[in-house]
């Protein structure tokens, strides 16, 4: 309650400013510094940079008063014509509703006029291990995002008619990656990506380690025709998950978490949150000009900035 009062008070101050100082609107006084800042809003001491992307930066920080170590993702919307980006609103709103041990926790949101700082719990560095066991341990925050690897063929083919099925494809890709330890369609560009997807491959050969039921589900997830691809409900009812509950570290458990994280609420599903999530990556000129290629949809649901998808499913491995 006191926290709310403090918030209301600070909002009130901001509002007073808004009413009294119209001149303030003319210029942006706070912008994301080009160099590493010493502190963030005077609350956190910056200890290092964990990652960088088109959205901004992720810092490793220490709460000055409590000493808590956190990861702070700063999202810069200085150049956004549409004020606060929709991707940011969706990302934070979604994270605010998620409260699960296996999903990275959003601790606080600090905002200035031109950027927002998302304060996350700092993930255990070991989390990088499970997808990169062939390449040694990698920092989950630093791992270069390559969301193209998870894009469904209909998106790569530039179809304007796509739906929630694109997420199931992404889940299939991640499922495969859990088994092999590397992106299953990991290629250099979209054309190679399509080549990889459409080249005749026997999944049972690549995923020889996988149980038959798992392979069956994987095939249903990686079905080329989005209309015939399995749905979230269908996937969750698949026999692969029959004898759950399972060990939380298991592949199946993580897969369920991932599937469940997709349509968080009914209205999102019925209104096609995912289908409608064709907003643009505001910093990427390739997508912002015409809005042609929507950002990876799974990524949009979990979080809308490029660094986030790996973060989520790495978190799921916890």
């Amino acid at each position, binding site marked *: 309650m006191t926290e709310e009062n403090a*918030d*209301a008070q*600070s*909002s*009130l101050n*901001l*509002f007073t400013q*808004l*009413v009294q100082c119209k001149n303030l*609107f*003319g210029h*942006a006084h706070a912008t994301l510094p080009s160099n590493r800042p010493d502190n963030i809003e005077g609350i956190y001491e910056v200890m290092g940079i964990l990652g960088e992307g088109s959205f901004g930066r992720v810092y490793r920080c220490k709460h000055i008063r409590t000493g808590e170590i956190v990861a702070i993702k700063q999202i810069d919307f200085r150049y956004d*014509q*549409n*004020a*606060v*980006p*929709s991707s940011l*609103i*969706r990302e*934070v*709103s*979604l994270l*605010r*509703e998620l409260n699960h041990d296996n999903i990275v926790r959003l601790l606080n*949101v600090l*905002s200035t*006029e031109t950027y*927002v700082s998302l304060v996350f719990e700092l993930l255990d560095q070991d989390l990088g291990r499970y997808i990169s066991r062939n390449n040694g341990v990698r920092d989950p925050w630093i791992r270069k995002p390559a969301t193209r690897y998870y894009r469904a063929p209909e998106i790569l083919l530039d179809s304007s008619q796509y739906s929630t099925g694109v997420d199931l494809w992404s889940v299939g890709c991640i499922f495969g990656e859990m088994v092999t330890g590397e992106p299953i369609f990991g290629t250099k560009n979209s054309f190679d990506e399509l080549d990889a997807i459409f080249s005749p491959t026997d999944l049972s050969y690549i995923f020889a380690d996988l149980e038959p*039921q798992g392979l*069956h589900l994987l095939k249903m997830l990686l079905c080329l025709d989005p209309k015939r691809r*399995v*749905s*979230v*409900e*269908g996937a*969750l*009812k*698949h*026999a692969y*998950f*029959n004898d*759950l509950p399972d060990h939380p570290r298991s592949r199946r458990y993580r897969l*369920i978490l991932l*599937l*469940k994280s997709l*349509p*968080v*609420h*009914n*209205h*999102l*599903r*019925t*209104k096609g*949150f995912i289908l*409608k*999530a*064709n*907003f643009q990556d505001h910093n990427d000129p390739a997508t912002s000009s015409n809005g042609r290629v929507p950002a990876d949809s799974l990524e949009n649901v979990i979080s809308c900035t490029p660094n986030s998808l790996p973060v989520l499913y790495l978190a799921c491995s916890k």
Partner: protein
Amino acid sequence: WYPSYRRNLNETQHFGADPNEFFLLPLQSDECLNLMVEKECHHLPREDYLNRVKNGKLDFGDRKEAIDWIQKAGLHFGFGPLCEYLSINYLDRFLSAYELPKDRAWTMQLLAVTCLSLAAKFDETKVPTPLDLQVGESEFVFEAKIIQRMELMVLNTLKWRMQSITPFSFIDYFLCKVNDDQSQIRSSIL
């Protein structure tokens, strides 16, 4: 592969009786309903809001005007019903958090534009720029920069909880219930 799972009418009375239900009906389950009810309270105006409206501390006419504008603008841009609902939800939640200065007529209009902008960004595919959003015969037109500041203020006041649980959230569940637990989505899989 499809597990045989069909409850009869009697069994539907026992909510959550089947431990496997959690996995079998992950999105429509009673557990999901409980979660939504639990979350809903975080997406409602404060308790005293209605009283404040009733005893005139909050100008009901201003609110109505703002909502009228939201509906007209929503219609103009072809926004869905959820978008409009969310706008009004944000507006009420914000108004319940503190009072707008009474002598500034433009503040309510600014709030209405901001709430619609936020709701559209959350729920719609095509979102007009803050300037384009301001359709109609409003006395005031606000710069994008002002809208942006106001957006941040509303976001912070509502603690960035913009994914409100609304009556729309429950429609599927109750449709499924009155339909003997046979959701249409399930039948479309087969």
